């Protein structure tokens, strides 16, 4: 039966927000993170991210399109999901979802469309049959690729990307707000929560792009851009420092205040979550990548490309684990202690259950498969000889 320790209220026994609710902020975080990277190129003119400027947009789109699936799997009645869109009740933070998600989806789709429009038109012109029809529909039947039209597209993309940054921040900040706004739960209830979610989202987004970009280049047999990896490593390091600082700041505040909730949060972190928090989130997921990235950034001039690629790849893989562990520790950690502050219960997802490990793995793989499909339809990587534009 349940593994319970000390005093639990009868309604503390069941973990309502399962592994699926861990997956949801994880996937949404990747959406926001990948978008921020694309904006670094499109808005802030970070030219080193040009090789992944378009790829990061597709990554963001692929993850956005699958972001709601963990929630739908979690809902007992997924067919009721549309109710939040058609009759949102604004006394609930969740009502914000329909508006934020739709708005961001529109902005992102428009941006992807405009960024790829010239390619879409070129494919439509060059292909025949069904393929031609598909690209013609995607081009909305307009084949105008004159320099003036492209220049206009370029300006609009910049505006869309600029709108997209707060939209992405809102979408993910809202997820953090859902937790941060629950006043009965001291492990969640902090105004820092949306900010922590946002920064860790950027970390996971950049880390995922480092991995996807390197794999994609290997696959295509092309050279990995050293400047791009160098830039990603630098930004990853910066955001990791800020994320870990914020995560620790929250805990240090709780520990220093020594309020009544610390009585339950201290054992929660050192016992119940000792592996996922101390080992994964803080040591393997934060300290080691921080050292690896520090070496990559500070000793860059002594480093060969291959070593830099390897170090950032390892750091990024560990950071993906770190962010997942952080989501786990927030979502599950907030539920395994009793609201009496005097007891704990355990949660281990089964492999095959509806909201189990296999479902989570499949939901994690699905956006990756979708990204491959999207990359086939709209190839994001340009030949490296092509002029910058």
């Amino acid at each position, binding site marked *: 039966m349940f593994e319970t320790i000390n005093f639990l209220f009868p309604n503390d026994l069941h973990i309502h927000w399962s592994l699926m609710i861990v997956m949801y902020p994880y996937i949404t975080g990747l959406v926001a993170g990948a978008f921020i990277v694309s904006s670094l190129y499109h808005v802030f003119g970070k030219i080193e991210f040009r090789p992944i400027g378009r790829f990061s947009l597709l990554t963001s789109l692929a993850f956005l399109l699958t972001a709601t699936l963990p929630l739908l799997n979690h809902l007992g009645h997924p067919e009721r999901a549309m109710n939040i869109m058609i009759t949102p*009740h604004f006394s609930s933070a969740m009502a914000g979802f329909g508006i934020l998600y739709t708005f961001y989806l*529109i902005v992102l789709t428009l941006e992807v469309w405009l960024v790829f429009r010239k390619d879409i038109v070129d494919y439509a012109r060059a292909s025949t049959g069904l393929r031609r029809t598909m690209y013609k529909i995607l081009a909305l039947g307009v084949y105008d690729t004159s320099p003036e039209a492209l220049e206009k597209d370029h300006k609009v993309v910049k505006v869309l990307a600029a709108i997209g940054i707060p939209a992405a921040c809102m979408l993910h900040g809202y997820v953090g707000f859902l937790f941060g706004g629950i006043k009965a739960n001291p492990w969640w209830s902090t105004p820092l929560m949306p900010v922590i979610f946002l920064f860790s989202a950027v970390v996971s987004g950049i880390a995922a792009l480092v991995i996807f970009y390197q794999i994609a280049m290997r696959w295509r047999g092309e050279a990995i851009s050293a400047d791009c990896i160098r830039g990603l490593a630098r930004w990853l390091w910066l955001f990791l420092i800020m994320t870990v600082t914020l995560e620790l700041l929250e805990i240090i505040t709780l520990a220093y205040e020594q309020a009544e909730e610390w009585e339950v949060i201290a054992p929660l972190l050192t016992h119940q979550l000792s592996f996922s928090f101390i080992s994964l989130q803080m040591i393997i997921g934060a300290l080691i990548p921080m050292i690896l990235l520090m070496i990559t950034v500070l000793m860059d001039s002594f480093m060969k490309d291959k070593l830099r690629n390897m170090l950032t790849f390892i750091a990024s893989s560990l950071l993906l684990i770190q962010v997942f562990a952080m989501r786990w520790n927030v979502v599950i950690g907030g539920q395994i202690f*009793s609201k009496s502050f005097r007891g704990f219960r355990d949660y281990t997802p089964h492999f095959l259950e509806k909201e189990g490990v296999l479902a989570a793995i499949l939901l994690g793989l699905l956006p990756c498969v979708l990204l491959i499909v999207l990359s086939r339809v709209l190839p994001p990587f340009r030949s490296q000889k092509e002029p910058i534009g």
Partner: protein
Amino acid sequence: MKHTKHYWRAGFLLVGGLIGFIFVRHFLVPTSFGQFGFYRGTNLAEQQAKSVVHGGKESCSTCHEDVAKNHAAGSHAVVQCENCHAALSKHINKDGEFVELMPIDRSPQLCLRCHRSLPSRPTGFPQIETKEHLGLDEPELQAGACLACHNSHRPSLEKKKVKYENNG
């Protein structure tokens, strides 16, 4: 405005999507939504029209007076019959006709649902650690393990002097 044809088309699509959403929403939101509050007004009538599923222990006692009397005298008097058996409608339909025999669950898990040792339960409430009480862990217990000594309708062993029929 030259070179803006594709923007007009995209804008048209977006506006079309918005109009489509408003149109679909019109059909999806029930007409009685908001009549009384933030829910479908007709839902109240639907709930009222549902046939009664549970009858309460009084409805059981109309036929099972002997069991009800025994049950009322013991510490389980506050427990509804349907808590351990099933809803009345499974046994008797709304016209008072017999449907099927009431299921009887003899598994120790049914008893442990309330009597499993949990720190959150009130002091003095009978709470069982099966290992201490029966020398076996919970999964090892056979059906009827609790009923071998306790009568589920009147479980206290101190009242054993009172004669009651076997499990009835």
